[in-house]
């Protein structure tokens, strides 16, 4: 465990020693903040209109009509930003020769991978941390239900974990960071869109595609429900991704 944390600490340190962490978190905060502002203004107008209709009009729900869309949007931003977190995890080590340091130190491949995974998750979590501020602002002016917010964060963390696992795998396959970031981005997009054609397919393929969709499993979390089915999906996705990364590092060793 100490070895895993040593790697995690090193990863976080190098994210924050280089511009990567600041660019990623800063730009995310900017884009997300702008969207949040727009969403709040839109929601405000909707509430006014509903109030204008007088007694008997359907009431607005801040959780369903503001918070949920905001989370869904942030998921899309993560699709674009997360490849930049994982792109250098392995590529950079291979390019600068530090892979030799890690692979000849008395630590296991698994510890290296877990350390890197947790480091990337740490940076991702601090990005999510930025959005907590926005949610807190909502409590100042309204009283949203807290359960869907907590489960949404849990869901986003799990989904981000899947993206990180894929990103690590792709980074372990190449020395070139540009290749890593572009390939990771393409795979993320596919994982996001994979069930968009489901409605035109046979019921079986529809079920399969829906199950594969990495973002589809987020819906229940956004609605405030923690379903074991989705937790299992995300955790096994992460485990499989990290397992393939371990194999990829091993293959690299044998090939030399």
């Amino acid at each position, binding site marked *: 465990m100490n070895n895993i944390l*040593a790697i995690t600490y*090193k990863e976080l340190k190098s994210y924050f020693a280089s511009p990567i962490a600041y660019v990623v978190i800063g730009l995310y905060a900017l884009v997300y903040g702008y969207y949040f502002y727009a969403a709040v203004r839109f929601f405000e107008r909707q509430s006014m209109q509903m109030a204008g209709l007088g007694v008997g009009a359907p009431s607005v729900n801040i959780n369903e009509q503001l918070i949920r869309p905001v989370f869904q949007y942030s998921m899309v931003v993560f699709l674009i930003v997360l490849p930049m977190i994982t792109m250098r995890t392995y590529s950079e080590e291979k390019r600068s020769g530090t892979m*030799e340091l890690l692979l000849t130190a008395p630590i296991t491949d698994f510890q290296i991978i877990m350390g890197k995974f947790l480091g990337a998750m740490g940076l991702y979590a601090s990005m999510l941390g930025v959005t907590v501020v926005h949610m807190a602002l909502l409590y100042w002016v309204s009283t949203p239900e807290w359960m869907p917010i907590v489960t949404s964060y849990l869901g986003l963390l799990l989904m981000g974990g899947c993206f990180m696992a894929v990103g690590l795998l792709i980074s372990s396959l190449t020395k070139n960071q540009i290749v890593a970031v572009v390939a990771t981005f393409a795979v993320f997009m596919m994982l996001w869109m994979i069930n968009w054609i489901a409605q035109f397919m046979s019921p079986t393929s529809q079920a399969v595609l829906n199950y594969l969709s990495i973002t589809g499993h987020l819906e229940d979390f956004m609605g405030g429900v923690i379903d074991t089915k989705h937790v299992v999906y995300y955790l096994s996705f992460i485990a499989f991704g990290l397992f393939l990364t371990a194999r990829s590092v091993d293959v690299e*060793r044998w090939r030399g």
Partner: protein
Amino acid sequence: MIEVQHLTKHYGPVTAVQDVSFKAERGEILGFLGPNGAGKTTTMRIITGYMPPTDGKALVAGYDVLEQPLEAKRRTGYLPEMPPLYPDMTVGDYLMFCARIKGVPRGERANRVKTTMDRTRIADVATRQCAKLSKGYRQRVGLAQALLHNPDVLILDEPTAGLDPKQIIETRRLIKELGGEHTVILSTHILPEVSQTCQRVVIINKGRVVAVDTPENLTSRLQGAGSLYIEVDSMGAEAKDTLSSIPGVTGVSVSERRGSTIGYEVATAADRDVRRELASTVVGRGWGLLELRPMRMSLEEIFLSLTTEETEAPTAAAEAAHE
């Protein structure tokens, strides 16, 4: 301390190392000599556990690097050809990180990092970013990293590459100090480095070991029958015949001629030292004796003869190596 048995490594169709075997005892400094692409780095990477061999095995302190990698790696310090530095980290942070993953206990880390920095003379750059270091400092930080956990075995891949002459001398001195308590394998293609620092040399070419011996033995073995160089002045025409008639001399040939000065190469029987007779003959005749020295094959020449052509000598040397 280090035992390499019949190591073979293929990269796809390319054979990098073929049936390499050698041993290094505790406290020994072993030179690993060979032209570029001979398989030095591959062999070192296998010993450090960076990559597995296709066949054969490597043992460090009795631990098989493939079967018990953690035990073996705990006892190994490795300086790769390119020092493995993190450009964003400061030297101090970098060494602290290395100490941590190499299993130096928490309480000792700071102290160990400090003493290692003093030993490799990098304390003055402790707060500098690795990316901003000169080549000499990078190399020494890499060396510090290899020494941190006080390993039994040190594997140094061209430790003096890219250093200036003063740094080279300092680094060689440090390596010599390290021998004795650590077993050191150092690869190089700089030959004087081997004769200056190493007790034994493994010469490797095209993935095969062509010779294992001390630098002195290698020199004398390839020497075969001894030969002498003698330079004389103002001698008579019969000089060559006179020299040839000395008992023990098997052949005389002119190797250099400068005005009235002539340099002869004198071949002698293997077990006879004819220097005294040679000198007294020349002086007795009233000629000027300007120079008399044994003609040693330099390590360079041995190296070239071992790695460029298949003469009888290397084969004999290689056979001797396997004993």
